[in-house]
């Protein structure tokens, strides 16, 4: 297996310690200190040191506690570890956008489908240095890339087999190479008032997605508002659907925007069901005529911002005829008569057309629509859209389009879950920002269009944006024209917004949030409750229900592969006692993990069985066995000095 070739030096480089001090003065100050240290020990017997990037306890107590556990064990074995604390959004900026970390502890948003590993680990994203959850580790392996591509092409049982049955697959590679180490998957537990709303425990409901907030029936006609508490203040500040730093998960975006398909939870598993699209069927790609035909091209060139734009860059896919077998084309029919929220109360909203859909996919693929010298993909939804090969709008109908992906049906359907953005809002916003055509280039993931909070949050979703107040609340109102409120719908999962107002109110304290639900000043704790506060949920309260949802997010330690080498990463992983973490930090409200995919996709050999099959903890009950750890480090080529400090190699 080929490792990251850009990492010639051993262990954690000196540069990384410099960088660990982060921005501004602190950088230069810690730099000075480091220089002093290295002057004293110039002959190479310098202690191995590294920084652990994490969030403050108020932003994620479990994350901070895991970092604490790791720091303590690293120090115990003689590695000079220190934590670097950044607020939630600064943490994401530093790890996902700047790539400025040795290792970090965080929570991965993941996805219901294991294809999220594609954006997490494909080398394309490491090379392009992309912003967002796309390969922040800098992992690059051609063989691994091929496996990731292979799983995209397969479907159904065949695909599952690749994950679960094949004797050595890329999950094993992942466990062996350790670009990141999954620690545990927390239970998602919430509390809600059952006396004010009915339907909390219905099927297909997940409170991290739109499904959780639809179809909730007020028990009394007077009840007009659902107050949902969130511990995270970011939605009260910015709801830009493209930003990588203002959210991990997209609950609010899910409510403001529709996607073509929606994820539903059934007894058989998770599937993508019709939403803004009434239906889709797999068709032969030839049936849609010639996609490169002039007439079809029209709708795309319309999306060029005004001015002397460069030529349409539709050349991304290598459209040789022989790989068309690996592609899937869906013919998609949009639901009739859907509109976006109106910008003005008197107006009717603009209709949602196939052109908006085509615009969305093109825009997510490059938020400058070809105007920048290098493309700037949206930092979110990268995995979903990266498989999209082309989107063709029917000439004669507003409601039909064809979407072709490089991959199987599973991957095609996952692509249907991105929010559909209104062309009439985003295109002018883009044009406003292109001031100088000759020299327009942007930093992917950091330029104003994907970070701003000033783009009107207009979608076609079941709730529309009403107001927000920083650090206090985000107020949504029911979108009366949403298709789910029509009477002729038959499918079970098409539930509508039944409550007039939905207010996400910021309550940073978990216990405070629980008691507010308990004493009826809120209807729901929308953020999943931190493990330490789960014990505070009232056991036998008549009107408070405890809700438990499936979870696919996981806590993990991410490594910067540009700064760490394999032996070191494995050593660090062996200093993490996942069983102990689950017991003492999560009070057993989590399951330890050896591989990041959900149970249905986990092969037996990587299922948790008392210890990590690849990197078992070196010690007992959270306490590291120093002698054994030193022996392990020595076998990796590290020297331990007489004081028990691990020295840098070479």
């Amino acid at each position, binding site marked *: 297996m080929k490792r990251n070739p850009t990492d010639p030096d051993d262990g954690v480089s000196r540069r990384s310690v410099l960088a660990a001090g982060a921005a501004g003065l602190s950088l230069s100050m810690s730099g000075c200190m480091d220089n002093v240290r290295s002057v004293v020990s110039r002959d190479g017997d310098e202690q191995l040191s590294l920084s652990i990037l994490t969030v403050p306890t108020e932003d994620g107590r479990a994350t*901070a506690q895991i970092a*604490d556990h790791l720091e303590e064990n690293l120090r115990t074995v003689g590695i000079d570890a220190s934590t670097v604390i950044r607020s939630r959004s600064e943490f994401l900026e530093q790890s996902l956008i700047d790539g400025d970390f040795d290792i970090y502890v965080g929570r991965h948003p993941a996805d219901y489908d294991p294809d999220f590993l594609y954006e997490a680990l494909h080398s394309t994203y490491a090379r392009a240095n992309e912003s967002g959850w796309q390969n922040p580790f800098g992992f690059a392996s051609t063989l691994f890339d091929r496996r990731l591509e292979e799983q995209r092409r397969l479907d159904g049982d065949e695909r599952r087999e690749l994950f679960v049955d094949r004797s050595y697959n890329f999950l094993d590679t992942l466990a062996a190479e350790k670009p990141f180490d999954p620690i545990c998957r927390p239970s998602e537990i919430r509390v809600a008032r059952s006396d004010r709303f009915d339907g909390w425990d219905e099927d297909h409901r997940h409170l991290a997605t739109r499904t959780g907030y639809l179809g909730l029936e007020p028990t009394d006609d007077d009840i007009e508002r659902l107050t949902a508490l969130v511990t995270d203040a970011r939605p009260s500040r910015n709801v830009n659907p493209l930003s990588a730093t203002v959210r991990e998960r997209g609950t609010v975006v899910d409510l403001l925007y529709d996607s073509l398909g929606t994820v539903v939870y059934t007894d058989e598993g998770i599937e993508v069901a019709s939403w803004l699209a009434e239906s889709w069927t797999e068709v032969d790609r030839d049936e849609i005529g010639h996609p490169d035909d002039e007439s079809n091209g029209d709708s795309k060139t319309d999306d060029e911002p005004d001015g002397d734009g460069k030529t349409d860059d539709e050349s991304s896919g290598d459209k040789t005829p022989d790989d068309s077998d690996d592609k899937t084309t869906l013919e998609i029919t949009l639901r009739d008569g859907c509109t976006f929220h109106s910008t003005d109360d008197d107006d009717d909203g603009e209709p949602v057309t196939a052109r908006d859909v085509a615009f969305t996919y093109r825009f997510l693929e490059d938020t400058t629509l070809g105007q920048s010298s290098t493309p700037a993909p949206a930092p979110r939804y990268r995995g979903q859209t990266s498989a999209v090969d082309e989107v063709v709008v029917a000439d004669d109908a507003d409601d039909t389009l064809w979407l072709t992906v490089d991959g199987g049906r599973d991957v095609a359907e996952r692509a249907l879950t991105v929010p559909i953005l209104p062309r009439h809002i985003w295109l002018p916003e883009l044009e406003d920002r292109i001031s100088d055509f000759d020299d327009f280039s942007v930093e992917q993931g950091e330029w104003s269009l994907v970070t701003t909070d000033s783009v009107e949050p207009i979608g076609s979703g079941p709730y529309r944006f009403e107001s927000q107040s920083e650090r206090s609340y985000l107020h949504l109102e029911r979108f009366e024209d949403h298709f789910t409120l029509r009477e002729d719908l038959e499918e079970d999962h098409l539930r509508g917004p039944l409550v007039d107002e939905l207010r996400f109110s910021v309550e940073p304290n978990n216990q405070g949030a629980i008691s507010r639900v308990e004493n009826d000043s809120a209807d729901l704790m929308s953020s999943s409750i931190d493990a330490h506060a789960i014990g505070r949920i009232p056991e036998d309260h008549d009107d408070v229900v405890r809700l438990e949802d499936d979870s696919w997010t996981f806590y993990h330690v991410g490594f910067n592969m540009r700064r760490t080498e394999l032996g070191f990463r494995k050593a660090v992983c062996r200093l993490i006692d996942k069983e102990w973490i689950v017991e003492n930090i999560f009070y057993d409200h989590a399951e330890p993990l050896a591989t990041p995919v959900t149970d249905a996709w986990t092969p037996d050999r990587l299922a948790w069985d008392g210890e990590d099959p690849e990197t078992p903890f070196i010690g007992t009950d959270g306490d590291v066995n120093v002698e054994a750890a030193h022996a392990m480090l020595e076998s990796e080529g590290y020297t331990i000095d007489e004081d028990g400090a691990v020295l840098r190699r070479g």
Partner: protein
Amino acid sequence: MLVEVLTRVAIVVGILLPVSLALFIGRERLERTIVELRPRLRICAPYLAVLGLVLILNRVMRQTAPNMGFHATELIRDIEGDFILIFQEISTPELTAYFSAIYVYGYAFLLIFPGVAYFAMSDTKTFRRLMAAYSLNYAIGVVLYILVIAYGPRNHTIFASELGVMLYEHSPQYQRLTREVNRSVNVFPSLHTSLSATVGIFAYYTRDSYPKWFVVATVIAVSVIISTMYLMIHWAVDVVAGLALAVVCVALANKIVGRWSYDDVRGRLTDLRRRLDR
């Protein structure tokens, strides 16, 4: 919830204040104050106005200041190590209750009482100096907050596991209060420390007029300063910086106030005119 806490603070201070006025100041002084209310107010008004302005500015800047400072949490911890943990070793539920009460109520009382007490002194110079020192504390403090971004110990990973017994865990409303007043990255320096120390220094200056207050103020001020560390809100470095800030502010206040008093300025002007006339 916030209103609830503020009301409670107001009630506690509202009860403590009249009791301590009777105890420390005495009837005679208070009566004279009422008689001389107008002239005293006239002299003191500019100082109160400045303090009000500084407080408003302080609040606005804390809420809206951009992230332009440098991150110092790691540096602070490098300097003091795990010093703050010694308070965890002596921690008991009673002490926690005491320091929590001191941090919220004791502090509010400590700052408000001397305002009244010094206003009741016939020479308003001390009052004006105190107001100037308060203003300086807040003004210099907010500049440092913007320049130095640091999380307090309670937000630092190393203490993540120790938080079980602490103030906020049992009383989320306090967290609400401090969050409202403060962003969690505003820890350097400790303004709780600098203002308490400022009051302490003034209490020392006025020990002849208010001997009992000197004792009480010292006890409360020292308790507040310890509570910031005991409750893991501030690092020892923040406290040391707070003490230094207090000394600087008091010294500056002493220099400024009195130098440019109304009489002084008028005197100098006449002086000047006389010289010019000559």
